[in-house]
């Protein structure tokens, strides 16, 4: 039987998606359901003096109106930060309360203060407009860089500072800098982004008064984790009385990791009114209230010798958390950021210092790449600048500082098990025709255009997260994954996974893995996920963990099945279990060459004694049935890496940046389905290029979101991209049995510095902040013209 792993198996999920048979949360309608509309703060910062719901209550069709008072009275808990971070001075991070409905204060535009539940959506909207909230408007803090100097947003949190965190050794870094021939320094703004999943958030909450069970259908990347948080911290219901279902979900990119206010409020309110409640975000609500991403202000320095050896690195960053610290809000700018700050280089001394600040903006949390794009952007912009200042070719300078041996003990935290950065660089250069660039630059110049080339070599740590590693860093929670592999008596297989697919193609790739492990045709394998009533606990999907963690749990559970199968076969065929081999779905006794198919074994396990060979095929100590579970806790992160090269052409008259060529050469270890990986790379690149050239979430000084719709927030479109030139090097991960590394975030991590390095190269080294919009580039072109005229 040919191996399915490694082949372009067509996606099993596409039939339902392409024929309109997907079942998303908004497709779910329950009998007698009501509709919720949230009344949200129009102010970025205000105290609530009074809420008057009298008029709204009289509005037609209103079932109930609930505010922060009721939710507090019922002792429903608030939203939480999932990871505790300690400051350099040893103090605990400072987190404000974040009630699901604001009671006393609102802290960003969109913060919900009340929910209106009515018989129809139109009636709920109508009534919501009649809720009168009397606010005392306060001065908002919106700037990341100046947040520590602004008014105190949350009582008791001085300077709006959540923590002041350090990773690395300041003294060693100082010593390294003292020895340097040159220090390259850079100031960077990592622009704020809005994830913009195609499907807006939604939830449908139902309450069964007889079983006292709440069922919440919601757009989540991790239903089990949502249930845990809602139960343990939200006090919504005990876990066994709360079922969370995340059906088809149309994209997450990190924005659907969080438990959101609406999930808690609708679940709680459904029980209160004893009716189902449906809420579907409008796009403008998504812009305002989905978590945002990035938003760092960084100063970084690289100490170098004159011949280009890196000696030391420092990174001083202010990270904007927004109004509240949410689930991955505090870990994103620390443990997902700091350890990757030194990139793919051997740098003897380094530190990263992060001050995480609160502002009156939407909460900032994990967005595709989460911390690693920010880290990679900083080091790769710095290295590119070093190459300009030292006059060393950008690829040579990188190669000079690559590690030469693996495992590579990286400066700050990670031990990278495998990789070959030089091979990746050489292949990328070849794919991109790096040598031919100067000729292309001249061609552009002849047309009056400016052409630039940019390079990024990245690595990232994903497959989050090995418990041992994160605990050694001072983080409390490891993130393992579970899988359950269940045979039916007639030989088909259901795989329950704690991972969640919201675009990642698990139904296909996980089935490919199980098909190979079990020798069962892929058509006979179903992947089940997204329902806390089905399968055991799971941590969900983010941080490129589904395959490297969730996939391995499936492999391990399959291996247990095979082990049991061997024992059963041995009993059935009167052989020793050690003499039974398993290949392509058959258990073969090596000495006699007698065999049993895995289907026969499954049947025998469920219906022992039906076949006449013997009374029971089950060996002593083995129970009937064929079902195995694995909880896999990885031994290390997975470390994808690669080199990307971009070429841009700029029209100096309009400032228009045209991305002419984009080459991505990635090392994702072993590839399960090349087509699916290409899709992941394309999507990641689109978002990364989007950050570099188009996307920007902008607040004015009063905290109003200026880019609150697609009229002003530039989502990249297909015509903004060239055909992507994609290739791979492949060094298998040594830390998991499949040899796989994550691929979901690489594009979003590598593309921003790659594109910006190209833009800045074209502009003669002038710094431009992301996104490199036409006007910024036009101004830089004018400056370039002036300075060139002076030089001449």
């Amino acid at each position, binding site marked *: 039987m040919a191996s399915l792993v490694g082949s372009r198996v067509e996606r099993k999920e596409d039939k339902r998606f392409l024929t309109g048979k997907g079942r998303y949360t908004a497709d779910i309608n329950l009998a007698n359901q009501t509709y919720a509309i949230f009344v949200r703060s129009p102010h970025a910062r205000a105290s609530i003096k009074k809420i008057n719901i009298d008029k709204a209550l009289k509005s037609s069709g209103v079932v109930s109106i609930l505010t922060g008072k009721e939710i507090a009275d019922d002792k429903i808990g608030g939203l939480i930060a999932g990871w505790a971070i300690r400051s350099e001075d040893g103090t605990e991070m400072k987190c404000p309360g974040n009630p699901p409905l604001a009671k006393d204060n609102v802290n960003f535009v969109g913060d919900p203060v009340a929910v209106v539940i009515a018989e129809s959506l139109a009636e709920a909207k109508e009534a919501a407009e009649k809720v009168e909230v009397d606010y005392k408007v306060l001065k908002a803090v919106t700037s990341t860089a100046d947040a520590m100097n602004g008014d105190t947003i949350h009582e008791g949190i001085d300077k709006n500072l959540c923590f002041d965190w350090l990773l690395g050794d300041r003294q060693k870094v100082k010593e390294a800098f003292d020895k340097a021939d040159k220090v390259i320094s850079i100031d960077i703004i990592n622009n704020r982004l809005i994830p913009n999943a195609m499907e807006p958030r939604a939830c449908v909450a139902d309450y069964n008064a007889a079983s006292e069970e709440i069922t919440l259908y919601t757009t989540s990347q991790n239903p089990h984790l949502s249930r845990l948080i809602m139960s343990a911290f939200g006090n919504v219901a005990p876990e066994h009385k709360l079922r969370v279902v995340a059906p088809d979900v149309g994209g997450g990119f990190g924005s659907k990791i969080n438990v959101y206010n609406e999930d808690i409020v609708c679940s709680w309110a459904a029980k209160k009114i004893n009716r189902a409640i449906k809420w579907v975000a409008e796009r403008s609500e998504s812009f305002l209230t989905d978590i945002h991403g990035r938003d760092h202000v960084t100063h970084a320095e690289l100490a170098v010798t004159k011949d280009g050896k890196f000696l030391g690195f420092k990174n001083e960053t202010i990270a904007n958390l927004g109004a509240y610290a949410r689930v991955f809000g505090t870990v994103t700018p620390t443990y997902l950021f700091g350890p990757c700050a030194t990139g793919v280089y051997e740098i003897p001394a380094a530190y990263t210092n992060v001050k995480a600040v609160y502002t009156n903006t939407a909460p900032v949390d994990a967005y595709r790449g989460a911390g690693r794009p920010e880290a990679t952007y900083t080091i790769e912009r710095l290295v590119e600048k070093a190459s300009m200042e030292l006059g060393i070719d950008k690829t040579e300078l990188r190669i000079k500082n690559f590690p030469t041996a693996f495992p590579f003990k990286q400066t700050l935290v990670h031990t990278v098990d495998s990789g070959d950065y030089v091979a990746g660089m050489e292949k990328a250069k070849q794919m991109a025709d790096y040598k031919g660039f100067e000729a292309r630059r001249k061609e552009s110049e002849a047309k009056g255009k400016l052409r630039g080339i940019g390079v990024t070599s990245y690595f990232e740590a994903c497959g989050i997260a090995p418990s041992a590693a994160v605990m050694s860093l001072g983080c409390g929670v490891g993130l393992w994954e579970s899988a359950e592999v269940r045979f039916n008596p007639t030989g088909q297989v259901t795989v329950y996974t704690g991972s969640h697919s919201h675009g990642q193609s698990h139904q296909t790739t996980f089935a490919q893995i199980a098909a190979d492990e079990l020798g069962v045709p892929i058509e006979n394998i179903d992947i089940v996920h997204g329902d806390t009533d089905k399968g055991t606990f799971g941590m969900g999907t983010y941080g490129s963990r589904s395959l490297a963690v969730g996939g391995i749990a499936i492999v391990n559970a399959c291996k247990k099945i095979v082990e049991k199968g061997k024992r059963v076969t041995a009993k059935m065929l009167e052989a020793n279990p050690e003499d039974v081999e398993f290949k392509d779905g058959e258990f073969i006794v090596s000495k006699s060459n007698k065999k049993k198919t895995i289907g026969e074994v499954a049947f025998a396990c469920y219906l022992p004694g039906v076949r006449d060979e013997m009374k029971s095929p089950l060996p002593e100590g083995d129970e009937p049935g064929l079902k195995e579970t694995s909880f896999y806790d990885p031994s290390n992160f997975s470390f994808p890496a690669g080199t990307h090269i971009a070429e841009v052409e700029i029209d100096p*008259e*309009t*400032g*228009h940046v045209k991305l002419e060529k984009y080459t991505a050469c990635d090392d994702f270890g072993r590839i399960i389905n090349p087509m699916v990986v290409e899709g992941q790379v394309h999507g990641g690149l689109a978002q990364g290029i989007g950050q570099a050239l*188009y996307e920007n979430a*902008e607040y004015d000084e009063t905290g109003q979101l*200026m*880019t609150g719709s*697609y*009229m*002003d*927030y*530039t*989502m990249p479109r297909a015509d903004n991209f060239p055909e992507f030139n994609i290739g791979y090097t492949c060094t298998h991960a040594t830390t998991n049995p499949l040899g796989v590394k994550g691929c979901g975030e690489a594009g979003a991590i590598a593309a921003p510095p790659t594109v910006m390095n190209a833009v800045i190269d074209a502009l003669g080294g002038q710094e431009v902040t992301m996104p490199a*919009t*036409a*006007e910024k580039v*036009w*101004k830089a072109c004018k400056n370039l013209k002036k300075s060139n005229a002076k030089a001449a």
Partner: protein
Amino acid sequence: MKDFNYHSAKDSKEASKLASSSSAFLAGGMTTIPSMKLGLATYKDLIDIKNIKKLSGIKVSGKSVTIGAATKHVEVSNSKDVKKAIPSLSSLAEGIGDPQVRNRGTIGGSIANNDPSADYPSACIALNATIHTNERKIEAAKFFKGMFETALKKGELIEAIEFQIPEKSSYQKHPNPASRYAIVGVYVAKHKGDVNVAVTGAKSCVYNDKEMSKALSGNFSSSSIDGMDLDSSEMNADMHASAEFRASLVVTQAKKAVDAC
């Protein structure tokens, strides 16, 4: 969206009769419907005019192209007659919005709305258009009064737009990267005797740039406007483009248009 009455008028007369101070004509609804959904506009009556047969269609004579007010953008961009007579008008229509917008939005709606960033008003100015309403004929130069303001009176309905066929013309747009409306759009048309340089997106209302028109009427070459430093004091400014940048783009796009003629 608030409740409203929907009327489908069978002719201009009925449409006009139904109009009141709290009504709006509905053609493609590309601005009216989103404005109502967002609560920015409320009407008691919506008077649908797209079923009025007389308002749709394209007629080309030796001197002019006449397009019915309820003609969709896609019909203009696909029309062989328009392509032949005024190719720039056809490509302008092809560059409006996206396929969904082009399959619903109408030329009359665009002109009546007079969005400062809309494409069609520049065509009207550049191509010396005459706006035919159910009451009168209005020259384009007198039709566009200011931001979202036109010479139309309440209940007055555009029936057709008559464009003068130029010797040469081109429309060049620097689009807003997000909405793809014009940050600046410049429609250059060379008629017998004079040149119009109609600019949209740059100011509160479409206008004919006299300075460039004069320069190009003298010498129809992009070199005659190259480096022209336009006054930016009345130009729009927003997060996507400052007034200074817009002023520069007007010249750049005008040059491109002349070169493309």
